[in-house]
């Protein structure tokens, strides 16, 4: 009797859950999954538009072969996209965390700086960004006159190319970091003064505080194992297990997710951009 009741509670639970999920599930099926599969199918077909609608004929992997062998732009675009992601993603993360740390300090005019730093997020939009980039408003003003720039220019090409790339796109990096900054900032505010205080009573230096508090933010469960965001923040797990502050972890779960969010958002930015790049320049 008792067992039966617990089962029915469980089914009820999953039923209500599915009900809450249902809009998303329907959307997933209708607007994403089926279109995606259809898209893959179309990529294996030759499509012609006639008066009686679309005519499809199966051609197999022909387009995939062609894109690598015959397309003049694809490989270049792929290279550019990879370069963009490899160089931008870590830079955006680092910049976002640094800016968020700075903006999280108790300073005069903090609100002003926050507004200033988040403003580009609102301004950024396709047409405007395109124009700014094509007018080179996003490169540092005549940076090549500075000594540092010349030093970097004379380094071996393996080192200097990525560094120059970053210098040339520094404004873009900062602008793309806006959203991530907001997210990291939200995470930092969750840490709370009591944690910092406890750490400083223990005689920690600022950097150690930072590391350990962030350790307390490390993902508690399976997200690491799933490897959604390997490397980076996973390391902190070790701290969290040995450190007493890990008690606070429950409190910080939002922040953890916020970190994940930051990472995912960077990926989104990258993906979006790669899409733009892959499109025809027209």
């Amino acid at each position, binding site marked *: 009797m008792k067992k039966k009741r617990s089962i029915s509670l469980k089914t009820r639970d999953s039923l209500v859950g599915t009900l809450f999920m249902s809009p998303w599930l*329907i959307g997933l099926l209708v*607007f994403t999954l089926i279109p995606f599969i259809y898209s893959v199918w179309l990529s294996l077909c030759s499509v012609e538009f006639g008066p009686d609608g679309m005519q499809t004929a199966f051609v197999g992997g022909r387009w995939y072969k062609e894109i690598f062998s015959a397309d003049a732009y694809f490989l270049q675009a792929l290279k550019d996209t990879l370069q963009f992601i490899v160089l931008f993603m870590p830079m955006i993360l680092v910049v976002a965390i640094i800016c968020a740390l700075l903006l999280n300090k108790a*300073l005069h005019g903090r609100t002003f700086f926050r507004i200033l730093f988040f403003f580009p997020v609102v301004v950024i939009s396709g*047409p405007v960004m395109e124009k*700014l980039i094509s*007018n080179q408003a996003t490169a540092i003003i005549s940076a090549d006159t500075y000594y540092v720039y010349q030093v970097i220019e004379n380094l071996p090409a393996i080192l200097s190319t990525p560094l120059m790339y970053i210098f040339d796109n*520094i404004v873009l990096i900062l602008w793309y970091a806006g959203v991530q900054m907001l997210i990291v900032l939200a995470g930092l505010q969750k840490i709370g003064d009591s944690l910092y205080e406890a750490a400083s009573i223990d005689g920690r230096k600022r950097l150690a505080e930072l590391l350990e508090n962030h350790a307390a933010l490390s993902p508690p469960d399976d997200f690491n194992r799933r490897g959604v965001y390997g490397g980076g923040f996973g390391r902190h797990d070790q701290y969290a297990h040995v450190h007493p502050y890990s008690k606070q972890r429950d409190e910080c779960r*939002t922040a953890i997710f916020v970190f994940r969010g930051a990472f995912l958002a960077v990926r989104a930015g990258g993906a979006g951009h790669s899409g733009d790049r892959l499109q025809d320049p027209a």
Partner: protein
Amino acid sequence: MNAKRLKARTQAHSKNILTNLAVYFLLIGIGFVFLYPLLYMIITSLMTTEDLINPTIKWLPTHLDLTNFKQVWQVLDYPISLFNSAWYSLICSLAQTFSCALAGYALARFSVPAKKFWIVMLIIIFIIPANVVTIPRYVLFNNYQLVGSPLATILPALTGQGLKSSIFVFIFMSAFSAYPRAFDEAAQLDGAGNMRIFFRIALPMTVPVIVLSLVFSLVWYWNDVAQCGLLIGDDFQTLPLELKALTRSSARCSAPPSAMRPTVLMSGIR
């Protein structure tokens, strides 16, 4: 003893001032880099063509010229496209926030069957570029004759498949699992149903997250040109779409030097 403490305190104080100075220096420096393109836009929008061509003029135009703004006001149909942009992005972001909150709540609080699978699906959706599903979506909406009406983007938003919806589902999921389950249970004991718990307890507990996702999706929908332009088409013009049309037409019909012009115009209104 006292003197020693005092000395220590003044030392700490001066160290603080130094770090504060460094922080201000960094903030102002980064702030300038942030603002540089904006300043460039604003200044350039106030210049006449002569000033633009003149290489000696960089930051200060010879006189303030507002004709650019006047032209843009007319060409972009500013009041109409502003109104369109506003209600379109507001409705889409509201719909998206609501549907993502529902999905996040379900994933955080209920034992949904195959939960891990759905989470993996979330990530996969996230990784698939939106461009991949654009054409089939167009075909789909075309079949139902929805192309050309704002419903074509509102419907996906309402079902959690809008712009970057996965992020919002994740954020909501974390927010809903962050506050203690005991609140829900207490409400349940008092006889509240699931919907009531969601609206009266779960949502009020996560107001900051709701605001965050509203703001982000508002901005993303406002600036969206690709989806909006394709699915809604020519009859419905938002501000970014008009901008894009303007750049294209002016690039087509003017000689290269004055092709700079639309930038000037556009920079003004942003």
